[in-house]
């Protein structure tokens, strides 16, 4: 009750003003048979201090070192990002349907669209999706609207397995088949052995780079009429690497100042060519002028959206990921082009340093292709290594056998700037575990 506005007196006064005796009189439109006849059984009310104590008591241990990425990356979140994004003007504002009261949010979306379009090398980007996985699914749905005669989508086996699962869910009741493109065991790259005809006849070809196994893809020369959807789950890599030349670029912004939060909320990005703009899902913010001719921003092309077009909308998406887009925008603004590139280089160097360190300890890298900040290590010669390190609260990456049968004791290892200072001591720990296992 502590958040609501009424006192016993105001309640009585308001009931009198309405002309009823009690709250029950206001519920009389609900038939007795529908009413709940017992009190709700949930915990509380708890005072704030008890609530915090209850959560504290639940907390368990934390890993000392977690070299875990696989689509969600442990990057440092600069203090200004947390501080600025905690301002209530961002946190407690609504979707900017009333532009006169939401220029801040609208300008932010426009900046976000500008940053994403540049990073992906695309002409336009929208104001964000729920996350990378749903952005991919929506990209394929958009490709299907653009290419209604095509009935097959080719998806690399090295696209994030959870993204592929979400795509399968979205396509479950559509007349389009998903075919998997295999990965080359030696390089870790996708093998695209499709004839030009097969490429042209596909709704889309979906490639992720760096892919789920860390390898940087080089799809080479696709047929000019093939429709490529490029996925990127580690957006920081775009500061260093050329983006895939795709018809639609989608991915995850989490690396840009968004805490991992167990995978949600994050923000997806969605960028494409201007000619496709009317088939895009999600919100778009455009620059315009106000009644006095001054620069002003507003939501635009809303005629694609569900609240106007209903069942003919390009997507059902409504509330999306505004506050997470804000985090990404502030982060990109703060680091700037140069800061972002230097950070990306630091990640790439730290990951190579660690990979080389593992090789010196007798472990092997699974793939040959260049990587960004993530790679697969083959620890099959030391089958107890992973668990030994885990007992010491060091997580040596993500076991890949969960998704790829035959990849037992292969671990996807991610190294970022947050690990930089401790890499030598982690290698020492791996060394002692190698000798002990």
């Amino acid at each position, binding site marked *: *009750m*502590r958040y*609501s*506005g*009424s006192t016993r007196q105001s309640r009585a006064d308001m009931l009198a003003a*309405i002309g009823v005796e009690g*709250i029950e009189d*206001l519920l009389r439109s609900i038939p007795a048979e529908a*009413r709940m006849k017992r009190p*709700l*059984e949930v*915990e*509380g009310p708890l005072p*704030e201090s008890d609530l915090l104590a209850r*959560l504290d008591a*639940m907390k368990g*241990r934390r890993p000392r070192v977690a070299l875990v990425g696989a689509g969600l990356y442990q990057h440092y979140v600069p203090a*200004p990002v947390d501080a*600025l994004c905690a301002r209530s*003007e*961002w*946190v407690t504002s*609504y979707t*900017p349907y*009333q532009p*006169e*009261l939401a*220029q*801040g949010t609208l*300008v932010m979306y426009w900046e976000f*669209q*500008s940053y994403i*379009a*540049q990073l992906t090398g695309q002409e336009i980007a929208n104001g964000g999706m729920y996350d990378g996985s749903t952005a991919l699914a929506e990209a394929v749905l958009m490709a299907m609207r653009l290419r209604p005669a095509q009935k097959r989508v080719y998806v690399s086996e090295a696209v994030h397995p959870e993204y592929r699962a979400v795509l399968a*869910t979205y396509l479950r*009741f559509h007349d389009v088949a998903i075919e998997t493109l295999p990965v080359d065991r030696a390089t870790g790259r996708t093998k695209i052995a499709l004839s030009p005809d097969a490429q042209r006849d596909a709704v889309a070809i979906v490639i992720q780079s760096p892919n789920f196994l860390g390898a940087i893809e080089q799809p080479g020369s696709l047929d000019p009429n093939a429709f490529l959807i490029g996925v990127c789950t580690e957006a920081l890599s775009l500061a260093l690497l050329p*983006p895939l030349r795709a018809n639609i670029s989608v991915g995850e912004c989490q690396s840009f100042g968004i805490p*991992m*939060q*167990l*995978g*949600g*909320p994050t923000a997806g990005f969605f960028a494409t060519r201007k000619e496709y703009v009317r088939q895009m899902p999600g919100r778009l913010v455009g620059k*315009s002028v106000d009644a006095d001719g001054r620069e002003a921003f*507003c939501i*635009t092309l809303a005629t694609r*959206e*569900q609240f106007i077009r*209903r*069942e003919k*909308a390009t997507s059902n998406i409504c*509330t*999306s990921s505004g506050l997470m887009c804000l985090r990404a925008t502030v982060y990109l*603004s703060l680091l*700037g*082009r140069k800061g972002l590139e230097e950070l990306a280089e*630091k990640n790439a160097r730290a990951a190579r*340093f660690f990979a*080389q360190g593992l090789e010196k300890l007798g472990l092997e890298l699974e793939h040959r292709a260049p990587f960004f900040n993530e790679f697969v290590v083959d620890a099959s010669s030391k089958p107890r290594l992973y668990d030994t390190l885990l007992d010491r609260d060091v997580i040596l990456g993500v076991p890949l056998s969960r998704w790829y049968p035959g990849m037992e004791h292969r671990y996807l290892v991610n190294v970022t700037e947050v690990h930089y*200072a401790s890499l030598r001591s982690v290698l020492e720990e791996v060394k002692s575990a190698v000798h002990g296992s």
Partner: protein
Amino acid sequence: VVGADPAIDGVKLDLERRTDGCNGFSQVTEIDCVRHYTRLSTTNFDINRGMYPLGSCTMKHNPLVNEKVAADPHFAHCHPYWPEKYLAAHSQVMKELARDLAEVSGFEHICLQPAAGAHGELAAVLMMRAYFDQRGETSRRTILIPDTAHGTNPASAAMAGFECKQIASGPEGMLRLADVVPHLDASCAAIMVTNPNTLGIYEKDFIAIAAAVHEKGGLVYMDGANFNAIMGVFQPGKIGADVMHFNLHKTFTTPHGGGGPGSGPIGYNAKLAPFAPTSGKPESVGPVKAWLGQWGMFIRAWTYIRALGGTGLKAVSEEAILNANYVRKRLEGSLNLPYRTETMHEVVFNDKDLPNGITTGDFAKRLIDYGFHPPTVYFPIMVKGALMIEPTETETRRELDRFIDAVHAVLEEARNNPDLVKSAPHTTPVRRVNETLAARKLDLRWHDPKAT
């Protein structure tokens, strides 16, 4: 940034690098960045500044303790692929939240995964589709949707391959059993009902309609956008709904964030359980999102529920209804009320009696000058010139009176000084924005002025 370790900094990079400039990136100092986003933020309206009587959006106070717990590093910086031993508290919170949502809704099962309300709808319509396909009832491809429904309902239904059939509400602003029954043929898969509906009216025939739909083998979806009106009052899962979504960012005080993130868990009964995204069964439609869902919202909702307890949650709904009825009573002599049926948590007026050609849009824009966010306008679509007010329980009577006084003041201006209203707002960082120009001359991103 060169670190402290030359051995790492000296590692050679075997990479093909991008050569394009990304010239639209700023290169600024920290204070430049801080000032830019601080100044931008001050051009926003937000709940902490004033009342947001946005119908069906439930813009109520977001308790600050929610933000405190969500920002705790233990809960903010955690990865779903960490081994279970590190995620005990997180699992416990999710288990308890699911149990709480099951209790308030009366459903046996909860799936927390969907990322927002519309995403929960999508998960639910996919489950319904899988349910009929498994039963071989492949002709059931139509979903009935009342004219009061949110646009997300038909949009979600279409994404699972359903056709939508709109049903007109009756003269009391409610769906009537007699209007539904003729549509319950072999092609009907389900009905999607928001209850209370977007006119703020309890759907009196809900139980009878649900029974009739079930009788013919169909399913009942309840849109939970207006759940703030019914906690402890009725449980949708006990009166005929098979599946519904929650909006944690409405009812359970996780913030709207200028357009998200939301969180849209769904509740459902045994009929649909095998098909749920996270059921782990072969019948599952599969995940609708990577990872577990909007964890950062779960912990806020968990906190909110415990801050109030069961009696507190019921009081939320009662006071939301009290406030809406108070606003209705004080305004119904002044604004036209198209439906006079009992009001629950929100009330819909329209611009029928506004003088001098003043429209709902004008009226809404002038309220801004009095320090209020406008109500929801031109929705629901079946009310011409709708003005939809949801005060929520967290506004005091004093604040409601201030809002009511503002409405009366604008009415007075509409009579005596209509141009002032038609040209509003006058006090905002920008005046009315030319939305037609924005759509006609698309300008969606920064362009390098040097590149022509």
